[in-house]
């Protein structure tokens, strides 16, 4: 007999083969799909996150855990209605105009996705207008911008200006990150949040989502 705890353990260990067997067994035994998700698969990722933050797990291990969770999800998802799948929120993200650094952004996507957010990656060298267009198209809760250069960080400001000009600022929270960026700079240009690196980004997103009243700030 499979247990939810075993599923969590599979996720923690990145055990891709076993997770399918276990999840299928739980389904066959009649466990509610939503329970398998929340108390098995996501519960596993909830163990992973603090271990990553404290340095006890590496990114590739977190990725394997996330893959494992997703493998389990594939079996459970068809059994429940779309609206029931827990999603913490939707995010679009890109590296700003003129900047090609994407590894930090990619890490952040990976971390945030593995914690239950839906993320749309706009890639690198994303022009101001393209951020606006993507907001219109995807209607996200959060917009993330990344920059690694002292010159391109100024594009975060012009992107926010563009978003304001297009009347979209109130609909979203904007978070920024990258080597030259600071909390103070985030305040200066009117971003809602700043994250030092991928390991703290999830908490920042959670904070953004939990205080929607600040959206109008």
């Amino acid at each position, binding site marked *: 007999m499979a247990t939810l705890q075993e599923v969590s353990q599979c996720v923690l260990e990145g055990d891709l083969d076993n997770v399918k067997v276990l999840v299928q067994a739980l389904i066959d035994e009649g466990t509610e799909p939503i329970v398998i998700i929340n108390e098995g698969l996501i519960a596993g990722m909830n163990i992973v996150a603090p271990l990553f933050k404290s340095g006890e797990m590496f990114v590739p291990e977190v990725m394997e855990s996330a893959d494992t969770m997703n493998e389990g999800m594939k079996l459970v998802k068809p059994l429940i209605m779309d609206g029931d799948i827990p999603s913490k929120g939707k995010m679009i993200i890109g590296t700003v105009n003129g900047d090609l650094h994407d590894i930090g952004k990619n890490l952040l996507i990976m971390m945030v996705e593995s914690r239950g957010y839906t993320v749309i990656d706009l890639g690198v060298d994303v022009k101001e207008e393209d951020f606006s267009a993507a907001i219109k198209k995807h209607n996200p809760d959060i917009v993330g911008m990344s920059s690694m250069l*002292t010159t391109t960080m100024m594009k975060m400001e012009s992107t926010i200006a563009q978003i304001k000009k297009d009347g979209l600022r109130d609909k979203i929270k904007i978070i920024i990150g990258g080597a030259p960026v600071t909390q103070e700079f985030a305040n200066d240009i009117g971003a809602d949040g700043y994250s030092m690196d991928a390991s703290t980004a999830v908490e920042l997103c959670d904070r953004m989502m939990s205080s929607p009243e600040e959206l109008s700030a």
Partner: protein
Amino acid sequence: MVKKFDQLAIKNLDDFVYGTCPNPVTTKSGMVIGGGIVYPEINFTLPGMDVDDETLPKAVGIYTDIIDGVLKRAAELYSPGVLVEFELLPEFTHFPKYGIEVNRVLLNGMKEAAEKYGLKSALRTTPNDLREFDRPPIMRSGQYWETMLELYEQCAKDGSDFFSIESTGGKEVHDDALVKADIRLAIFALGILGCNDMEFLWKHLVELAEANNCFAAGDSACGYANTAMVLAEKGFIPHVFAAVIRVTAVPRALVAFEQGAVGPSKDCAYEGPYIKAITGCPISMEGKSAAGAHLSPVGNISAALADTWSNESIQQVRLLSDMAPIVAIEQLSYDVRLMNAATKNGQQLMFRDLLVQSDSALDVQAYVLRPDVVLRISAELVKEQNHFLKTRLAAKLTVAELKKAIVEGKVKSDKRDMKWLDKMEKQIDSIPDDPDEFYSQMKSVLNMDKFIPSEYGL
């Protein structure tokens, strides 16, 4: 035309030390790099600002202030000479007239400092590798490629001493290898894509340099191995993985020298010690006095074999004493004073060994920069001429070297390190000898949207 390095240029540990190499390079101002003394190499960048037609005069003013301030302080500290690196921001390469203008401002500041203080200096011009602005990157033609060549040529004509670049061939694949800590993918990216691009790129840069009275100096695996180091410092990937990537990047860096580069290799290329052992060319290195640009576990040991000693990069921001680049040249100047004082006493080997001892047992990434380790691995690498196989060999030898060191207690290790080394060893051993066979194996895991095989001659 292509040089073949089939034996070590430096065979003896006692000949392997900072400040000296078999093939020194003499700058236009008469600095002999690798000829006995270590020179400071100063780098700098703009503070947070936009760069466009409107703000260019401001940017030019900032670069003028930087070069004047830095060279004045270097002269006050009796520096024997200064290597200046102008590492271009993307905007300055995109619009070559911007880059050319700033390059001239720097050359002019250097000329003035020579007149005013009698200070020798030389300029390394390092454009941005624009080619990855196309996604997937177009490596061998097109506007970006043409623009880079145009910039190099004019800067050489204006008086630059050295060409460098942090080229990015294969980086689009290597990024994935890093976050997955996947050594097979890394070897494909560095040993096939990276080496192939370096062959193409450096053939052109060497020709251009030679035609314009300039030296082709060398490349850096910054976007590969230094990204690995930074990720490891953050605890994102294992330190042993970053250490293995460092050495795995060596055959790629070597391609520039096979094509005719002469050094000094680029500051952030910690591949340098291997390059120096194999080619005998001078190298630039950076460590503790580059901490304003990145933290590292190799703050002292990185100086052990340096011919120029760099701060990597610092913004023009105000610190309590003065502007940050002036602070940087002061720190570099004192560092090289100490190294050169030891040389003057004939104590350079002893001082080298102190630099080595102080770091090498504390981190695997420092361990692979030990001069004896470098010579041992390099001696094997020169026996293999195929770039791909040399890259695989570098990874294999490093894994073996680290396993031995950990078992023998010669270097601090994390309890998870041995597991990762075993995993890498297994992956490396699974790589076939035939590059074509390897490529077809890799096709199943490669994201073929990310790169264009024909841009790498595949």
